[in-house]
């Protein structure tokens, strides 16, 4: 860690006084399911970079008819290259609208093209992109995605605008989007360019940058569409969206189980994300003298995060209880900030220690994200390390001695010691892929005939099986000899060797347990994207909002995108009293 950055007097007398939080603390499902977006989230990294490097944006084509059907293009032009989002708008009957992967038609479909487009490109893409997985794109495309309208908001906003009025922010805020994407496919999918093609481009440093550029441009398309439909309905009276209201509209996303296997299947990448965030937090905790200005910004952001929490409304009991707790935690924090001594040294470290004792993981993780905000010089450089070339990590070290492998397994998977994987609850679930559009699913091992199709997504169980077979080998035997006798342990051996270098790459919980909640995994990944308003619709899929509050392409030059992430304080309700957590009004904790 570089401890000499930006003139902040870090702790020279004890340079290692603030170690990173251990994986055994961070990589638990309940905590992963409490993460919030931060300065290091990929959407924020993208917008900072686009702004810093002076990217410009235009809409070269708008060929949408009065029924809302046609094609439009949105171009982002940077210092060296340009990219064009191609948006196909469709007329989708309400009864065909589904967010499931198994849907076959959508309100709109998109691809991000590498460079400028020709009419021939548009024809080619028009014959493929609307069919999504059943079509084929080329190495000149970087993403493939689709979106459905929000039944709740799209018509409401179109109706308001057509009548010459602005929609009510109170209606917009809980939903937060006009359309939600239901899949955003990236590199190497359905013919799109492999990651290798663009991995060296500075505009895509980090993770998921082409996909998120697509989504940010899609956001503008959704606004253009609703304004277009309003004009079609009532050309005489229609108005455009007020810019401040417009900014409160992001892009929704429905996300299912596919993200959960992704987290388990990319340990080096996940480690790089978590490690960057933990490093950022450790740097901030090590700041000795904190200015009043930094305290002031932090306090304002806690207030704005509380506004966000107040606007965050869900039906799902598990998340509803967490949000209730978050509001309580943030209110408690505001009271603490007004009474605690904030002028002494290492105030962030002390605040976190206070939070560890006083708040739940939702509140703790929210505060960590907020503590990073005043320190762009200390934090933002870490974003460049949030990627991994996983092909480099593939080879097994067969010369490793069995004793070493045993130590690695015992250290990394020590949390399995108390799990009896022979018991039914400990292995109740099976991760599998359905032949129906290859949708990732989670089944019940003892109720369904799916075990033959099980994906290797239970590292704890597999590690324990390998440890049992390792007992027959001498400590100075090699891994190579073990794997020749036991090829069935090759997968977990490779993984164990990898995560011994990348401790945040392994989840320290049983991923096939009866009580495991996939939405915890989904939320972890989505927080790194920069998503907000996690809205679980069951224990295994959820909706989110992306880019809510962010500037649009036509105003990126005018605003600091990082200053807009939390809702403005004008929406701030009066500061509530600390709710009594023993109150029986707390939502039921039972997850469905």
């Amino acid at each position, binding site marked *: 860690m570089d401890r000499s950055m930006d003139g902040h007097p870090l702790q020279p007398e004890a340079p290692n006084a603030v170690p990173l939080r251990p994986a055994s603390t961070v990589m638990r499902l309940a905590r992963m399911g409490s993460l919030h977006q931060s300065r290091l989230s990929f959407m924020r990294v993208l917008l900072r970079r686009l702004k810093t490097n002076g990217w410009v944006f235009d809409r070269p084509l708008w060929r949408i008819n009065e029924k809302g059907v046609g094609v439009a293009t949105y171009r982002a032009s940077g210092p060296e290259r340009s990219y064009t989002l191609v948006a196909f708008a469709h007329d989708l009957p309400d009864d065909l609208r589904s967010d499931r992967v198994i849907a076959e038609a959508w309100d709109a479909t998109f691809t991000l093209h590498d460079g400028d487009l020709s009419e021939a490109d548009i024809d080619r893409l028009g014959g493929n992109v609307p069919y999504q997985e059943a079509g084929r794109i080329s190495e000149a495309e970087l993403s493939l995605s689709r979106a459905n309208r929000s039944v709740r908001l799209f018509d409401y906003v179109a109706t308001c605008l057509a009548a010459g009025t602005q929609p009510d922010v109170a209606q917009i805020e809980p939903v937060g989007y006009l359309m939600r994407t239901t899949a955003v496919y990236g590199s*190497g999918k359905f013919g799109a360019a492999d990651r290798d093609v663009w991995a060296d481009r500075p505009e895509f440093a980090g993770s998921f940058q082409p996909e998120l550029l697509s989504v940010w441009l899609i956001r503008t398309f959704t606004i253009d569409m609703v304004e277009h439909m309003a004009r079609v309905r009532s050309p005489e009276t229609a108005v455009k969206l007020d810019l401040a209201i417009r900014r409160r509209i992001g892009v929704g996303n429905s996300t299912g189980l596919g993200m959960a296997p992704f987290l388990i299947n990319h340990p080096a990448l996940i480690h790089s994300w978590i490690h960057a965030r933990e490093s950022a937090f450790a740097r901030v905790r090590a700041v000795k003298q904190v200015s009043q200005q930094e305290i002031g910004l932090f306090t304002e952001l806690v207030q704005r995060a509380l506004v966000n929490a107040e606007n965050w409304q869900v039906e799902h009991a598990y998340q509803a209880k967490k949000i209730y707790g978050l509001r309580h935690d943030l209110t408690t924090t505001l009271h603490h900030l007004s009474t605690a001594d904030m002028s002494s040294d290492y105030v962030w470290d002390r605040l976190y220690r206070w939070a560890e004792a006083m708040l739940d993981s939702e509140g703790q993780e929210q505060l960590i994200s907020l503590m990073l905000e005043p320190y762009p010089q200390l934090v933002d450089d870490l974003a460049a390390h949030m990627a991994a070339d996983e092909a480099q990590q593939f080879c097994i070290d067969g010369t490793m001695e069995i004793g070493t492998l045993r130590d690695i397994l015992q250290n990394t998977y020590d949390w399995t010691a108390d799990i009896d994987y022979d018991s039914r609850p400990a292995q109740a679930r099976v991760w599998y892929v359905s032949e129906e559009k290859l949708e990732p699913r989670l089944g019940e091992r003892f109720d*369904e005939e799916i075990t033959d199709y099980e994906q290797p997504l239970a590292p704890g169980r597999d590690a324990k099986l390998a440890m049992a077979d390792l007992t027959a080998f001498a400590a100075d035997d090699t891994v190579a*000899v073990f794997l020749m006798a036991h*090829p069935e342990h090759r997968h977990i051996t490779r993984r164990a060797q990898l995560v011994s270098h990348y401790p945040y790459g392994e989840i320290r919980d049983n991923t096939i347990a009866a009580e495991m909640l996939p939405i915890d995994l989904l939320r972890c990944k989505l927080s790194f994207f920069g998503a907000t308003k996690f809205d679980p*619709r069951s224990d295994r*899929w959820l909706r989110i909002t992306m880019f809510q509050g962010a500037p649009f392409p036509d105003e990126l030059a005018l605003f600091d995108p990082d200053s807009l992430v939390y809702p403005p304080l004008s929406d701030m309700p009066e500061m509530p009293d600390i709710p009594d957590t023993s109150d029986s009004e707390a939502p039921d904790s039972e997850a469905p």
Partner: protein
Amino acid sequence: MGEASALAIKAARGVGMPWGIAEEAGFALRWLTRSGGPGIAALCRYLSAYQDAPKMSGAEGTPEAGGAWICPLRLGSAISDGGITLPLAQSGVREPLLLLPFLASQATGSHPVLLEIGAIRIIVSDDGFSANIVETALLISAADCTISFGPADSDMIKRIGNRVDSTASDCIATLTRFAHNTYAPATEASRLAGAGAGLNDND
């Protein structure tokens, strides 16, 4: 290429290989494709044979069994792990082209690895391979192989590849069929519960 590699893993799993070996199939295809070899054809031929083979003892090809069926992926893995050291003479190696990616792990700049199959000589370096014959002649269902360290011949032509040849559509169709064995059949129960239908997704 990433897409083809992912398909290779699923296809190898789909014919019954352990996940860890199936991952080696993905690696092998990626390496061969990048190196300009007919990797997808070789893998397709091998997995087809594997699928059709009677599941006798040793059919998975433990290298030390020395039987009639030596799996190039398992032999190759054992070589790259260091469990089997070079030089080596091994009879009955199935689809030996699939060995090349693993031999590359043993090659250094000054010590490339030489694979000899009768009169065919293939030199494997850490970043590709050269051979004294045209590439389709490298598709051999089974062969006795001699593997050693040796210098490249001057008449060998180094191959360079990039993406999987899109004309390999028959191979892709076959691998897709094998991969399909890893997918659970669609049932109404699975559709409703498996992805958590739960609350309405259309509002």
